């Protein structure tokens, strides 16, 4: 293993990138530009989609470079990533769809005024 190449420069680059993404997220989270926050797109605001995509980008950066998935054999990497991505997508789809349906029913039955 001692002949392995040092990745120090790459590690600092990835850190700079992850920090930048976090700063952008926090900035948007504090400012909450109305044009992004109040515009709906595919069931939620554009701002939420931006947060979601930036989060996935960060997760990719951590898994690929810090957990060095990129150095693993192709099919080992796929054996790890594909099942998790598939199962989480299925789970997220079902529970969020169900939650939305519950909400539609519940909101009809919730009163916000009293006599």
């Amino acid at each position, binding site marked *: 293993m001692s002949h392995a190449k040092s990745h120090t420069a790459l590690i600092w680059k990835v850190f700079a990138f992850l920090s930048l993404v*976090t700063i952008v997220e*926090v900035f948007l989270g504090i400012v909450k530009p109305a044009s992004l926050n109040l515009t709906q797109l595919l069931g939620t605001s554009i701002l939420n989609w931006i*947060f979601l995509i930036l989060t996935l980008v960060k997760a990719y950066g951590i898994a690929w470079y810090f*957990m060095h998935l990129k150095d693993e054999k192709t099919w080992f990497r796929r054996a*790890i990533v594909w099942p998790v991505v598939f199962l989480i997508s299925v789970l997220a789809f079902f529970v*969020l769809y169900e939650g939305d349906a519950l909400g539609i029913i519940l909101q009809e039955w919730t009163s916000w005024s009293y006599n």
Partner: protein
Amino acid sequence: MEAIVADPQKGGAWSGGGSQPFGSSYGKMMMWFFIMSDALTFSGFLGAYGLMRFKFLDSWPIADEVFTHIPFIHGDFPMYYVAFMTFVLIFSSVTMVLAVDAGKHMQKGKVIVYMGLTIIGGLIFLGSQAWEWKTFIAGSYGAVQLEDGKIVQFVDASGHQLTLESFASNAPSERVQHKKENGLWFVSESGLPSVTLEQVKEGFANNPDISMRTELINLDTKEKTIVSREEANKFLNKATRVVQGANLTENEYGKTLFADFFFFITGFHGFHVFSGILINIIIFFNVIIGTYERRGHYEMVEKVGLYWHFVDLVWVFVFTFFYLI
């Protein structure tokens, strides 16, 4: 066959018999499989949170209004502290990966320094989370709960939230704390709220410029609805108790479920951080006494590194779903 069957001649079952499918050792592969199962556990929790979030889309607490504190400084600073925590965790991930890198080159001194920094980063994160919990439990303004569980908060004319103490009357209260000495010996009660419901009601009646804010979110402006005085009095007639702070059974910021999920998910993640720190400390001392120098490789550092990065990875998602979205 030989490549996949554990061969005691080559080093016993715990090393997978020395066979390395995909060029990955037994320990590393099992760490990956553990991480996969743990990732699914966390997605189950976050999925449940998402379900409730969608279910109560029109009345969920707004995170920006809940987590607004910074240690030693008064004022309204949404997100800054949790952003700091995120940086600490990412940075400890960086020092961890630098330790792994140094281990590959058999640089014992560097591994010690970087692992030490990683442990310190983990401790700072855990301390910050403890502080975040303490602040959330203590609460900031106080609220009143209605008989159907809804939470109403009080605002001044400009829509800023008011603490209950700032307007409640100081009418004398008959209510005393339920203790073993004065009540049922098997029942006890934690401290009473600093104001009673009657004092809040009286204070509200005496201050005509105070108004009330309900949990209902106006989806066009993404802000909580402020109701008229007339409507507010109807709400107050249904009030049952004063709520200050948050715990598993009440939450002054809104839905109790928000507090439940917050404590459960950040607590579960915090416990991962805690066990990660313990494992890191064990490996840290192993590095110092030269265990891996003698073994000829620092793969153990790489394996605990995988776990530590995973903890960071989970935090990235917790941060997004609890604080940003």
